[in-house]
Structures are given as structure tokens and as C-alpha cells.
């Protein structure tokens, strides 16, 4: 039985080349908290800011926080790595079971260094650690890999996490993801390719140990109170009911939903692919991350007829606003079953579906404009053409030719070779599904993860039409620190309305993290600065970021995007971020 330690982190550092692990007890809990902070601390310790992302020495880090497993919706894991997409230090987050599996395996973090001799699967548990040769799985898609790994590494069904990559990760696509337990992903910035470069096809984490109950008698009461807050209030209704696809109709209504490579921001066809349409036509059930009673995972049923004699194959595909936008409205595909089919194809390749969809939207416009030919695209790309996109998605995953090799490195990389940078919908990385305006575009361009989750800039745009650089930069900076506090824990960001700093401090105090509870926000600020220091040390120049022309060619509810204001906002935010690069983290 393990006991949580208020001072030290218990970290397994595994050398894939030597096939040996080392359990380290590392100090610094009240400084680095866990999750984002722990990952940054471990990257600073084991990584090399100057070496490339695919250097075998670079660590691939999975870190959890002090509250994971102990409270509801403390259910996510932070993956820290050097991104092959931009060669910067990066984070990607996933739900599923890996968070609680690491907790019950007795680990605060798993750090993988080196490169395995043969394609391998790492098996971790509270009392087991081995590297298994799975060369026969190389080339298998994500779904098949999951099925076979359950046989190769039996036991603990339901009480383990299986992380794996598909062909895209093996082929080192810059936006290959790591699939977590079928329905969740360490989606963005290419952690799957880092796994591929390490010859690591899968990781099975057995949550087969257990933790001593916290001594504080208030713990069960506090758990119950938070559980009731999560389930009894209206706060989670959005995620519980239609899920994130509920966003499609209102975004379209305010001219903020990107359509057909963002050549439009609204279209009456939205009714065909709204959250309501998905629920009516394809939703078959929900699933949850372990420890979360909300269960926001929406699983759609894809019924694929493969013979005219009424023979069908059934696929279960999880959907959300982001994938629905990326392979739906962005590609002019509006039928829910067709959207599921494309998400399924992306998932099987092990691609980040947001980047893959947005890359294909650019490729379609480039094809229409004659910048690329069918000899390069292999299939004639046209908005709305499901079959062409299914094939193209497969070609990205399999790096079928030079064109798809370039496209798999990122839309801008392809545009540099073939032209069309102006209409590449890339702001730091391929855009997420919010054409809300200047604040969001700047937030994703400059933001640490280049993610819609770095700040709620997309929400700010929907409430603020005024053009005030100073006020908006302040909002972006302030919003980030509280989110870093949450990703240190590592909370689901959907729970941010419940896990305010006071509540998190109360939970930490209850588990015995007295010092961290008292210094929670200063520590979070320190982590925020250290993450930026690492990102800038690995080559990120916030001042050099660019927003392609397409983003100033659109109209939202606020009117046409103001390119001049957007540029002033970008410079203002970037200047504030650049200041972090010259500083040592305040708490180190």
C-alpha cells in the first residue's frame, strides 16, 4: 500500500535502450506541485533544450498531480516532451484511465528515455516492470494495437490504461497522437511521433496497487461535497447532455464556426451536424474518465455497409466539438455518420484529428487553386467528398508520398513547399474550432500549448467587442495562471468552475499537503514561468509568431476581423510572454 508524500515525488525513470528502470524520490512538491510543474521540472532535469525532439535521450514524460485519484474529475495526465511539430518544449493532456492507473501503480510520473532495440511495449504496475518485444505490431492501426495488447499483456481489465500509437506515430508525423484507452488522446503537438522515435508501440499501466486513506477525517465529507457539486448542479449539464458539440449551433449563429478552410464562418447546413443532430442520429452511449461522474465522452455508432447484401460493420467512435469541426465543417462534410467515419480513420492512423482535418482543408483549397495536382494528392480533393478524405487521411498516416510526408509535418510546412501560406489555418498549430475573432487567434498563436485550452480567449471574444490591447492582454495573462494551477493538479478543465483556488487548497490541505495548500497560487505562477522559460529556451520566439492572412479575411458577430488590432494584440501578448524567457523560474 502506498502513501501520498507531501514532500517528494515518486518517479519511475525507464531507459528503453537498457530495458532498466530506476525509481527516484525527487523533492520539490511545494514548488512544482505535480502535473505541468512536475513535467517541466523533469524535462529540465532529463531533457536537453538544444537536442532535437527525436534524439533518443529526450524524455517522454507522463505526470500526474497530488489530487488525482483522490477527488472527482481529478482525472487527467500531463504528457511533457519536446515537440517534433515546432521543436519546443510542449505539453499535451489526456483523460481516460492513465491518471488513476499511474496513481495506483504508486507513481507521480513516468519518464521514458532512450530508444528500444525493437518495437516494444512497456508494462508498468505497482509490482511489475518489463519491456515486451512487440515487433509484430509495427504497422498495426490504433484499434488493432489495442485489441492485441490486451492479449499480449493480460490482466487487470478495467483497472489499467493502454497508451498506444498508430502508423502516423511510427512514420514520425509531426502531429501523431498517443491514443489513451481508445476514446481519449494526448492529441496535439506530436507526442505520438516521440513514442515512435523511441520504438515504443504501447505502454500498459496497471493500476494494481492502492493508496492509504488520508488520515484527515474530513476527507470523505469533502469528497462527497465535491461529488455532489459536480453532479447535482447545472454546471456540468453541457458536458453531460449533448457534450461539447452543443457549441456548433451557437458558434454558427454568431459567425464563429469555421467552414471549408474558414472561407466562411456560418452556414445553414450547421443543422445537419449540430450536437443535437449527432445525439439524434449516432449517439449510442457515454463513457467516462476514471474518477469522473460527469461522463462527457460521447460515443457514436458508425454503421458501415460493406456489401449490397445488407452486411454491416459497426465502429464505436468518440466525438466532440473539435474533431467534428476539423473533419466536418472545415471539410464541408455535414452528415454525422460521415464525420464519424473520418474521425475513425484519423483515430486508426493515430493522428491528431484537429491538425489532420485542418491540413486536409488547406490541401483542398490548394488543389482547387492548382497549387497541388492529383499526382501529389493521389485523390481529387473536394469539400464534402467523404471517400476522398478517408483515403487522404490514410495517406497522411502512411506518409504515402512526398506531398503527404510534407502535409504530415504540418500545414505550414507543406505550404512552404507548395505555396498557399496565406490560407493555411495555422496559429501556432492547426486551429481549433473557434473563429471567434482577434483574442482567440492571438491566444492560440502565442499560447503555451497553442491550444484552445490555454486561455478562454474564445469565450472572451464572444463577450467583448471593444478593442483594448492592454485589458485583453491582462485577461490572457491572468487566465493562464489559474489554468496552470488546475493542470498542476491535474484537473479536467471542465471542472474549473468547481475547482477554484480556495477549493483546491482545501483539498490539498485535507490530504496533508499543508505547505503547497498555503502557497498554491505563487507556486502555480512559478510553474507558469518555468514552462515558458523552457519553451523559449527550446527556440520559441513569441515576437516572431505570425497569423496567416486568412484569419483577417473573415467576419464574425463583431464585424470584419481588424487585422491592425489583432497585430497590436499579438505584439502586446507576445512581449509579455517574451519577458518570461529571460527569467529563471521565480520558485527555483
Amino acid at each position: 500500500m502506498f502513501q501520498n508524500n507531501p514532500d517528494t515525488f515518486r518517479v519511475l525513470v525507464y531507459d528503453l535502450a537498457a530495458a532498466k528502470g530506476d525509481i527516484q524520490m525527487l523533492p520539490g512538491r511545494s514548488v512544482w506541485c505535480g502535473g505541468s510543474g512536475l513535467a517541466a521540472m523533469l524535462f529540465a532535469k532529463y531533457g536537453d533544450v538544444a537536442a532535437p525532439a527525436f534524439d533518443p535521450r529526450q524524455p517522454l514524460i507522463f505526470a500526474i498531480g497530488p489530487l488525482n485519484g483522490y477527488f472527482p474529475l481529478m482525472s487527467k495526465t500531463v504528457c511533457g516532451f519536446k515537440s517534433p511539430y515546432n521543436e519546443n518544449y510542449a505539453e499535451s493532456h489526456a483523460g481516460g484511465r492513465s491518471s488513476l492507473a499511474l496513481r495506483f501503480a504508486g507513481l507521480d510520473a513516468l519518464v521514458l528515455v532512450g530508444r528500444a532495440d525493437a518495437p516494444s511495449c512497456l508494462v508498468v504496475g505497482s509490482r511489475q516492470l518489463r519491456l515486451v518485444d512487440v515487433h509484430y505490431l509495427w504497422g498495426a492501426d490504433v484499434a488493432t494495437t489495442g485489441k492485441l495488447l490486451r492479449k499480449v499483456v493480460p490482466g487487470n481489465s478495467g483497472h489499467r490504461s493502454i497508451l498506444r500509437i498508430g502508423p502516423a506515430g511510427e512514420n514520425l508525423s509531426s502531429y501523431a497522437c498517443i491514443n489513451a484507452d481508445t476514446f481519449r488522446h494526448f492529441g496535439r503537438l506530436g507526442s505520438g511521433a516521440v513514442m515512435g522515435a523511441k520504438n515504443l508501440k504501447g505502454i500498459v499501466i496497471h493500476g494494481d496497487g492502492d493508496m492509504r486513506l488520508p488520515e484527515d477525517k474530513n476527507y470523505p465529507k469533502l469528497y462527497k461535497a465535491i461529488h455532489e457539486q459536480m453532479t447535482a448542479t447545472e454546471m456540468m449539464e453541457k458536458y453531460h447532455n449533448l457534450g461539447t458539440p452543443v457549441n456548433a449551433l451557437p458558434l454558427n449563429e454568431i459567425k464563429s464556426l469555421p467552414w471549408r478552410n474558414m472561407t466562411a464562418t456560418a452556414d445553414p447546413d450547421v443543422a445537419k451536424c449540430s450536437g443535437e443532430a449527432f445525439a439524434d442520429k449516432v449517439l449510442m452511449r457515454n463513457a467516462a474518465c476514471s474518477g469522473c461522474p460527469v461522463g462527457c465522452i460521447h460515443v457514436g455508432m458508425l454503421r458501415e455497409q460493406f456489401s449490397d447484401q445488407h452486411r454491416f460493420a459497426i465502429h464505436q467512435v468518440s466525438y466532440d466539438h473539435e474533431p467534428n469541426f476539423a473533419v466536418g465543417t472545415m471539410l464541408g462534410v455535414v452528415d454525422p455518420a460521415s464525420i464519424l467515419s473520418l474521425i475513425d480513420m484519423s483515430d486508426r492512423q493515430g493522428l491528431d484529428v484537429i491538425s489532420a482535418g485542418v491540413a486536409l482543408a488547406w490541401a483542398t483549397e490548394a488543389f482547387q487553386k492548382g497549387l497541388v495536382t492529383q499526382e501529389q494528392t493521389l485523390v481529387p480533393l473536394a469539400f464534402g467528398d467523404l471517400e476522398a478524405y478517408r483515403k487522404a487521411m490514410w495517406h497522411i498516416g502512411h506518409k504515402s508520398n512526398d506531398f503527404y510526408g510534407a502535409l504530415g509535418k504540418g500545414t505550414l510546412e507543406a505550404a512552404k513547399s507548395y505555396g498557399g501560406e496565406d490560407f493555411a489555418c495555422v496559429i501556432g498549430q492547426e486551429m481549433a474550432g473557434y473563429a471567434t475573432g482577434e483574442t482567440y487567434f492571438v491566444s492560440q498563436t502565442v499560447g503555451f500549448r497553442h491550444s484552445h485550452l490555454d486561455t478562454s480567449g474564445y469565450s472572451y471574444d464572444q463577450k467583448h467587442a471593444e478593442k483594448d490591447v492592454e485589458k485583453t492582454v491582462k485577461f490572457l495573462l491572468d487566465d493562464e495562471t489559474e489554468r496552470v494551477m488546475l493542470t498542476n493538479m491535474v484537473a479536467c478543465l471542465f471542472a474549473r468552475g468547481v475547482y477554484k483556488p480556495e477549493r483546491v487548497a482545501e483539498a490539498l490541505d485535507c490530504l496533508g499537503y499543508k505547505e503547497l495548500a498555503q502557497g498554491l497560487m505563487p507556486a502555480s505562477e512559478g510553474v507558469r514561468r518555468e514552462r515558458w522559460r523552457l519553451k523559449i529556451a527550446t527556440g520559441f520566439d513569441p515576437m516572431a509568431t505570425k497569423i496567416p492572412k486568412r484569419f483577417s479575411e473573415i467576419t464574425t458577430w463583431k464585424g470584419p476581423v481588424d487585422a491592425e488590432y489583432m497585430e497590436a494584440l499579438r505584439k502586446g501578448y507576445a512581449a509579455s510572454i517574451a519577458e518570461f524567457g529571460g527569467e529563471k523560474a521565480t520558485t527555483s
Partner: protein
Amino acid sequence: MKVHRAVRMERCIGCHCCSLACARLVYKSVSWNTAGIRIKSSGGLTSGFQAQLCVACDPAPCAAACPTGAISQRKSGGGVLLKRAICIQCGQCAAACPVDAIALDQDTNPYVCIHCGQCVSFCPHDCLALLDAETRPAPCTEGCHVPE
């Protein structure tokens, strides 16, 4: 006397809130395993979930197999009582259980549902119920239970 049944497992979303509640409130730990109810998938998340849970045998093979009386038959309603203090961690109870409802930890301590119902309210989809044992409710799911 009450009996705990996982009556609507078709609705289960795999959140493990029941297992975590049992571990926390009954067995005083934080765990997926050291709990009287455990949620398993059978071949990945696409296959749905099963509850590993005592089906309230009467007589209970686990009680018969227990050499010290640490696991004993409840007076009525099926199911068993567990006295941790006199358990010798032999694991015979788990081996005797016909439905694999008793978990053993790494020290061979047994964990079994004691039909207290403390986990029921933590299920967000109403999968679990504490029923009147005198009605002898069958240990089956959905189809057998008409909504009240």
C-alpha cells in the same frame, strides 16, 4: 435485510465512482481494487462494463471455504459478513466464489461487498440499487427490473 444489486449495468460509463466509494468508505483506502464492487471492461471500453459484485449466495461457498469464520453467512438475505481481525489471508474465500466477486490485495486480504449500499448514491447513472432481500431479487440486469 438489504441486498446490493448492479441492476442497470447497461448504463454504466466506467467512471469507477462506486469502487472508489467502497474503497474509501468501507475499506479505508483509495483504490480500484480494494473494494467490494469493481468495474471491469471485457475487451476494451467498446465492449461495455461489468460489475464484479457479490451475488448474495445462500449458502455462500466463500463462507463455507473460510477456515476461521472470518467470512460468515449473513443471518438472512444471502451474502456474508467479514471480520478482518480473524482473517488469516489464505485466499480460500476468493477461490470458492463462483462469480469472482472477492478481490485479494497483494497481502491476500479479501475485499467483498457487504451489501451496505454506501456506493449506490455515487453512481451517476443509477446502475446500482439496494433492494429488499425478502423479495429475493434476481442478480440480473435491466430486463428483470421494471421501472417503478
